[in-house]
């Protein structure tokens, strides 16, 4: 809410400089987010008097004026193209050397052969009003020669009023807050009406179909008015507050909305059929052209202001074009109503018409403001447009609720705040926000939470308790904790002392991030860079993974910011490859990245998210240098990385097997499924290691040709972590090494060989390392020779040559028997 201080001062005295006032309001919970000095950018712009106005001899649209800007100032000759000026008027004058808002400099110029010694300004050029059509005509009492900034400058505070404080979305509401902060008194505007003519009720009726949706409707009528501009002061205030001045009638209702926080609508009385206003829900098929000249089809839960012919306006949101106050209007009907906040909010959202009015209605309205607002608008319309206020109001619910009683326990307030505040001080603090306090009675109920029985006071506890009498504008104060906040707020939050807790500590809980952090530390220690990419990706990203846009397992966002971020990722791969592509644009092509993040899917009508680890290696992995050749990333880099990570975590990668099925983004010959030992010796799938398919890399626009990826389940990793880590004694007896060159055929894999060796050599095998791989002559085509070094060791003794030979023989036999492999000597 924008608050012009000159306007605020109508309702409360403010002695503080703007910055100090802003601080006080902020500390009271009314956060001032900006201070604007209007007029600070008017340099050398003064009030001038037009002594003469004559046509320019050489131009049919220019006028030549003589301007006085002070008793001892030389007269200025100023040319203007505006036609609304006349001798005797006072106007803003930019004298030579002046600077207008936006930095425009005014100097002596020549126009059609005549010199112009400055410029006459419009309201829009100064930002004082929004009128750009003519020169701003100042009131006749404006002091000639005075700087415009001194007369019309203002300071505007931008206050962030929180959603629970609809009452403070007004100058009067904020005046109350200023009063609470400074101890000053609030001055209500004096609302005095002089009524004349026919009774309003004789020409106007209001029927409310559903009182739940419209608990109160107050109407008034003003006749014999003339539409015109509102006074300059009003226009300037509305402009400063961020509203566009329109006409004396419309400005009056906007002025009252900002003054009291009461949104009010005015209708052209002639447009209301039979003077009958009906508040009802829309009927199927009904249409309405709203003030913004959009024809709208109305949905049946839209609350309408209607007449017997049909809709006049959307209640609380926007009026209709047909009943709009226009230049020819001579009589108006003022609508000052209270509507159901939820209904208004839904309507405003449905038609995407969120207005200053609907924002206030949806926060709830103080009932009595319906009456006060109607009177106030009638008063201002009469004053500004010369109209006559018809006697009497139409009021569907004249009875106004009394303040509510809110019992509370000062001891509970102290327990909540942790600050020793005396009861007397609490009462004084509440009085500053117009909350009186009385003693509580036995049987009073302290409200703890909405929808829950309160604490009923017995004789003893009633003696300690108080009742806060909540003024009707404070609809936000409902429970005991609300009173505690009000006390703390007025007293100053900063006076709550800080201390460290002395309450009992919770029981120990292992940190669920510990394993993740160990993984992150390990990978960063291995030289990888951690990235964080979007969880929301586009259908095109999924399509490239082979997941159709409409895949039923994908969770979609129904109101995405853009289609590129409209689906929850099913995989970390698109994010990682995007990082690759973006960095390639910066000519960074050698990368080693990882990300820990969630992937999402829909399963059985429920959202499921899985914690994943993604690794992407691209380009040179060796770190090519003067003494070291580059080594382009391949499957073995990422396999080795995963092996070492698992080893670090105490997890053994059991198997890598050739993937039984290949995704479209995977290299069909370079994709491995990694398995680790799970609970009870089961093999658990850890994830996949692969080189991306060249077509996939091409589709994402990557230049890289050597990329290797691992996508691993963090859940599988975490499950496999050993709950306790125990030291295993190692044998002190010598170990022996034996090398075996094992020849296998096309159909066998290294993984199978390794598995057979491990099984056959257990329990003596302490190490197994593939140190050479050979194919070619003299081997037959398709044959490969795998050279393994076996480290053998008994737990308790030095093995004899016979024992060693027996163990190796067992391995050789198993290889021959199970794989048909032979030993190359």
């Amino acid at each position, binding site marked *: 809410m924008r608050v012009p201080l000159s306007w605020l001062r109508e309702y409360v005295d403010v002695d503080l400089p703007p910055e100090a006032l802003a601080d006080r309001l902020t*500390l009271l*919970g009314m*956060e001032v*987010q900006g201070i604007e000095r209007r007029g600070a950018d008017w340099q050398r712009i003064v009030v001038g008097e037009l002594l003469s106005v004559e046509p320019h001899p050489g131009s049919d649209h220019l006028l030549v004026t003589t301007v006085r800007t002070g008793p001892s100032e030389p007269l200025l000759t100023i040319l203007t193209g505006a036609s609304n000026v006349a001798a005797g008027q006072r106007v803003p004058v930019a004298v030579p050397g002046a600077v207008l808002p936006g930095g425009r400099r005014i100097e002596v110029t020549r126009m059609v052969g005549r010199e112009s010694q400055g410029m006459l300004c419009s309201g829009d050029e100064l930002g004082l009003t929004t009128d750009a059509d003519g020169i701003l005509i100042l009131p006749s009492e404006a002091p000639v020669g005075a700087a415009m900034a001194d007369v019309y400058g203002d300071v505007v505070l931008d206050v962030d009023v929180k*959603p*629970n*404080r609809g009452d403070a979305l007004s100058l009067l509401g904020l005046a109350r807050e200023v009063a609470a902060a400074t101890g000053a008194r609030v001055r209500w505007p004096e609302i005095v009406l002089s009524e004349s003519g026919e009774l309003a009720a004789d020409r106007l009726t209001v029927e409310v179909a559903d009182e739940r949706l419209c608990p109160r409707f107050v109407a008034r009528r003003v006749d014999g008015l003339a539409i015109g501009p509102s006074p300059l002061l009003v226009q300037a205030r509305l402009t400063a507050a961020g509203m566009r001045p329109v006409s004396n009638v419309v400005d009056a209702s906007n002025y009252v909305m900002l003054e009291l926080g009461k949104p009010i609508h005015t209708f052209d009385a002639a447009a209301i059929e039979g003077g009958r206003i009906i508040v009802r829900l829309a009927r199927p098929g009904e249409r309405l052209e709203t003030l913004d000249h959009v024809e709208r089809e109305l949905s049946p839960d839209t609350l309408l202001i209607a007449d017997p012919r049909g809709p006049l306006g959307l209640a609380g949101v926007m009026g209709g074009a047909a009943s709009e106050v226009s230049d020819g209007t001579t009589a108006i009907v003022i609508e000052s109503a209270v509507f159901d906040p*939820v209904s208004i909010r839904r309507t405003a959202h449905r038609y995407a018409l969120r207005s200053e009015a609907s924002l206030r209605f949806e926060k709830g309205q103080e009932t009595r403001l319906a009456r006060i607002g109607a009177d106030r608008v009638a008063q201002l319309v009469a004053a500004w447009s010369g109209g006559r206020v018809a006697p009497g109001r139409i009021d569907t619910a004249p009875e106004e609720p009394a303040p509510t009683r809110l019992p509370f326990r000062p001891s509970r307030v102290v*327990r*909540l*705040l942790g600050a020793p505040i005396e009861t007397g001080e609490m009462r004084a603090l509440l009085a500053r926000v117009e909350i009186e306090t009385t003693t509580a009675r036995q049987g009073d109920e302290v409200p703890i*939470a909405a*929808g*829950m029985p309160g604490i009923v006071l017995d004789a003893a506890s009633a003696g300690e308790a108080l009742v806060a009498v909540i003024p009707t504008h404070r609809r936000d104060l409902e*429970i005991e904790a609300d009173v*505690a*906040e009000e006390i703390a707020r007025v007293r100053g*939050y*900063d006076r*709550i*002392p*800080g201390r*460290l*807790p002395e*309450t009992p500590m*919770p029981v*120990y809980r292992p*940190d669920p991030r510990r394993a993740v*952090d160990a993984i*992150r530390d390990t990978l960063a220690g*291995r*030289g*990888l*860079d*951690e*990235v*964080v990419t979007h*969880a*929301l990706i586009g259908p095109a990203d999924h399509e490239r993974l082979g997941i159709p846009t409409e895949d039923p397992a994908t*969770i*979609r966002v*129904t*109101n995405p*910011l853009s289609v590129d971020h409209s689906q*929850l990722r099913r995989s970390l791969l698109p994010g990682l490859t995007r990082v690759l592509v*973006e960095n390639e644009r910066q000519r*960074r092509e050698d*990368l*080693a*990245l990882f990300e*820990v*993040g969630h992937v*999402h899917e829909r399963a059985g009508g429920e*959202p499921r*998210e899985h914690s994943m680890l993604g690794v992407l290696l691209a380009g040179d992995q060796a*770190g090519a*240098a*003067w*003494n*070291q050749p580059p080594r382009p990333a391949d499957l073995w880099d990422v396999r080795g990385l995963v092996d070492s990570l698992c080893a670090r975590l105490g997890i053994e990668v059991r198997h890598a097997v050739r993937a039984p099925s290949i995704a479209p983004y995977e290299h069909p010959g370079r994709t491995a499924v990694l398995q680790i030992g799970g609970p009870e010796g089961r093999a658990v799938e850890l994830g996949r290691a692969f080189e991306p398919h060249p077509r996939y890399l091409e589709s994402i626009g990557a230049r890289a040709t050597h990329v290797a990826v691992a996508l691993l389940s963090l859940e599988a990793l975490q499950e496999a972590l050993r709950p306790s880590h125990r030291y295993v004694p190692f044998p002190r007896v010598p170990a022996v090494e034996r090398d075996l060159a094992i020849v296998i055929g096309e159909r066998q894999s290294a993984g199978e060989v390794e598995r057979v060796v491990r099984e056959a050599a257990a329990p003596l095998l302490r190490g197994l390392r593939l140190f050479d791989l050979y194919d070619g002559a003299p081997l037959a085509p398709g044959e490969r020779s795998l050279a393994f070094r076996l480290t053998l060791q008994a737990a308790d003794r030095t093995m004899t040559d016979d024992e060693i030979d027996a163990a190796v023989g067992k391995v050789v036999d198993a290889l021959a028997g199970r794989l048909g492999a032979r030993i190359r000597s």
Partner: protein
Amino acid sequence: MDLETISARLSALQEAGLAAIAGATDPEGLETVQVAYLGRKGELKTLLGGIGALPAEDRPHVGAIGNRVREALEAALDARRLELDAAALDARLAREAVDVTLPGRPFRRGSLHPLIETNREIARVFGQFGFVVYEGPEVETDVRNFQALNIPPDHPARDLWDTLYTDMPGYLLRTHTSPGQIHVMQQAAPPIRALLPGRCFRYEAVDASHGFEFFQVEGLMVDEGTTMADLRGLLDAFAHAMFGGGRPTRFRPGYYPFTEPSVAFDVQCVICDGAGCPSCKRTGWMTILGAGMVHPVVLRNGGLDPERYQGFAFGMGTDRIAILRYGIDDIRMFIENDLRFLEQF
């Protein structure tokens, strides 16, 4: 041959041998000298072979001289060998000399993402005060994200969170980590001291200080006596840990439907130290988190009796804390993953 002659010959042999040893320039030459003088068919053996021609009483005498010659030659050989070895090693080392100013073999540096590290640092600080980490889902129910937090459907406070909705009815992308409060209260009994870091989502256009995905850390402390003064004390301790001891802090009213009273927590601007600058909108303060005493409705929805239990909750933007800690001026850096950025962490 007589004693005198043989003595003279031995003496000459020694002279000649020593000279040959001294003249050897490499281990092979030295070996040749050794064989020539001391070998089985060497000169010394040959000379002493003639000892039988001497009178018996002279033989021991000649033998003794012969041994002295042998010892002298052997000592000279050993000394010369050491000399030659040392020289050979020196020569090798000289050949092995390199330009030590050449760069070392490169190792990848590796880095940890500043957002995740900031989360870890926050958890480390609160961990000192007994806070433990919990996790909640990114796809949440409307019930937990809003309704259980005292934000019914059509409540004006919903405007505080521009929400991204999913095509699964009742599910949305969590707009904050606060639904974690409900998760924790439902799975742990007081005393509770919990932290919930996580990714959040909002319908928010991207600029230097906003993104539609961001990270938050929620804190929750509930027991029978936790007060606003405890909240203040812990937040002060946190602010001092993150931004330096002694940095002034400010506690002021805020608004959240799920806390009452609600708090906004400011620290003195870390850019201008309170003098006022564009970063702090000239106020000298920067808001780093929102907090408050858990609303009784939220305690009840978490299954706790709000008359017996009370406590506080806070929520902070990890991005914001990281920006202030590292002096980053654009939060888009966090998700762009430009290596020139990542490599600084």
